[in-house]
């Protein structure tokens, strides 16, 4: 496997007034095509900043992001983002929210009818076709996030970026959405980079877990390979030795070696 997405020596420094804060220090990571990589760390460790840099929404101070060996430094549909708070446009229906993305990305290459079918297909993928004419305000939080995922998938991104996509959801809804994402990943083979602070979520979904040290000057502390066969079943894993070991490793990293220091 060759490197598909490469984060190359990324540094990020914010300066405000006379003080400069180093958020990220020398973050280097290579992600292969079809791989599911999670970035986990305590809040404030700069993991969202890192995702924004990959998305192109924030500029790195030094270093860069390479996608298929080409540098990317501005946002684009090849790196679609599923935002933590869904970020659907409330004045558009569920269908129109996805259609906006489809029209923008495929306006030159597909006919109207094809774009319509593609929009519906993506809504079906996340099981939201039944609510296509509703507005985001009329559906539940989990449904909104499903539409957010459909919108991102509809752009046929090279890399799907998930920014704590299930953080704002209750535990049951979160589990359902995690299952959905696993099935989509299994079927479409997307390359996914996910930010999370949930250890179980990271172990369940990922091929590799990237553990960040605490900021300031956060860097990659450890990378853990999760050698679990797919498809993974939530219930089977509860007693799976590999799963428990991976879980323990992440927990130890987060709570023994890199305890969250409130004062930092």
């Amino acid at each position, binding site marked *: 496997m060759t490197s598909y997405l490469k984060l190359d020596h990324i540094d990020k420094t914010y300066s405000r007034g006379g003080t400069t804060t180093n958020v990220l220090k020398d973050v280097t990571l290579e992600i292969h095509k079809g791989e599911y990589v999670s970035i986990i760390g305590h809040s404030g460790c700069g993991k969202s900043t890192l995702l924004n840099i990959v998305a192109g929404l924030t500029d790195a101070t030094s270093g860069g992001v390479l996608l298929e060996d080409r540098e990317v430094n501005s946002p684009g549909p090849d790196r*679609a983002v599923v935002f933590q708070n869904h970020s659907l*446009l409330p004045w558009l229906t569920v269908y129109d929210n996805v259609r906006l993305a489809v029209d*923008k*990305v495929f306006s030159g290459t597909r006919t109207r009818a094809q774009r319509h079918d593609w929009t519906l297909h993506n809504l079906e993928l996340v099981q939201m076709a039944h609510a296509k004419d509703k*507005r985001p305000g009329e559906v539940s939080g989990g449904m909104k996030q499903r539409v957010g995922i459909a919108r991102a998938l509809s752009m046929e991104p090279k890399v799907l970026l998930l920014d704590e996509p299930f953080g704002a959801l209750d535990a049951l809804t979160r589990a359902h959405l995690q*299952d959905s994402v696993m099935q*989509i990943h299994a079927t479409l083979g997307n390359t996914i980079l996910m930010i999370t602070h949930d250890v179980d979520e990271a172990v369940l979904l990922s091929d590799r877990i990237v553990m960040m040290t605490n900021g300031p000057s956060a860097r990659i502390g450890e990378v853990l390979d999760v050698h679990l066969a797919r498809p993974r079943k939530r219930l089977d894993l509860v007693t799976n030795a590999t799963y428990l070991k991976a879980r323990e490793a992440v927990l130890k990293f987060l709570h023994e070696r890199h305890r969250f220091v409130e004062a930092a």
Partner: protein
Amino acid sequence: MTTPALKLTGRDAPPRAGGAATATVVAMPSPKRKPAADRILPVLSSIAANVLPPLIVLTVLVGLWQILCSSPTSPLPSPTAILDSSWELIVDPFYDRGGLDKGLFWHILASVQRVAVGYSLAVVVGVALGTLIGQSTWAMRGLDPLFQVLRTVPPLAWLPLSLAAFRDGQPAAIFVIFITAIWPIIINTAVGIRNIPQDYRNVAAVLRLNPIEFFVKIMVPAAAPYIFTGLRIGIGLSWLAIIAAEMLIGGVGIGFFIWDAWNSSLIGDIIVALIYVGIVGFVLDRIIAGLGAIVTRGTAAA
């Protein structure tokens, strides 16, 4: 296109037809249609509840007016005296005897036309300037102090300057409407643009919307509730200013009609005209509010 369809299971999924759950069908007795009186009565009572209170208040007030102004020495005419003196004006708003001797409809129409032109210009320029100072910090710093001072200038204070510049009553009045209506539109639009959540900007960035698409698809709908607040204040101010401006510039128009009636001591005509002015102002406000409700539906339910 190439991706196979998936069937996922999720809590948010719709229940599949023909699922495992079984239910017995219980025949319900078909509901009998209620007698007509039972269905009409609630409608009538709800109409009565809404219409009766204003009707009663209006009757009491007009009665009070009648009592207070019925003495022969009263400076203002009573309602019956107005009916008597201004009967032609009330029953036929469409007469036209040439010159300024026209029915109220024609005067109102002339005023509304001036407002329409001045206000439309104010909407276009106001939304554009508001967007500019909402988007650009530099433009805001440069223009905001100027706007804050200019917006406190009373509408009529612009009229002499406007007359001097345009050398004609018609464009001068339109300019006064424009300059009166534009400030609330600029300021509210700017606030609306400034309050667009970063999330929407991120979505636009990921989709690579160009500036025009961003303006049409994100900015206008996101700022619409604010913009329409400005538009409603603007139309109200326009209507306030047109009456005063027309009193000074003359010609056909409800403002000059009132001034003319005063000069001819036709107090009854003035009162009839005031009622028209109030109703038209109310209708203008409702039109903009209705447009706003249509355009911003969904936005409020974010």
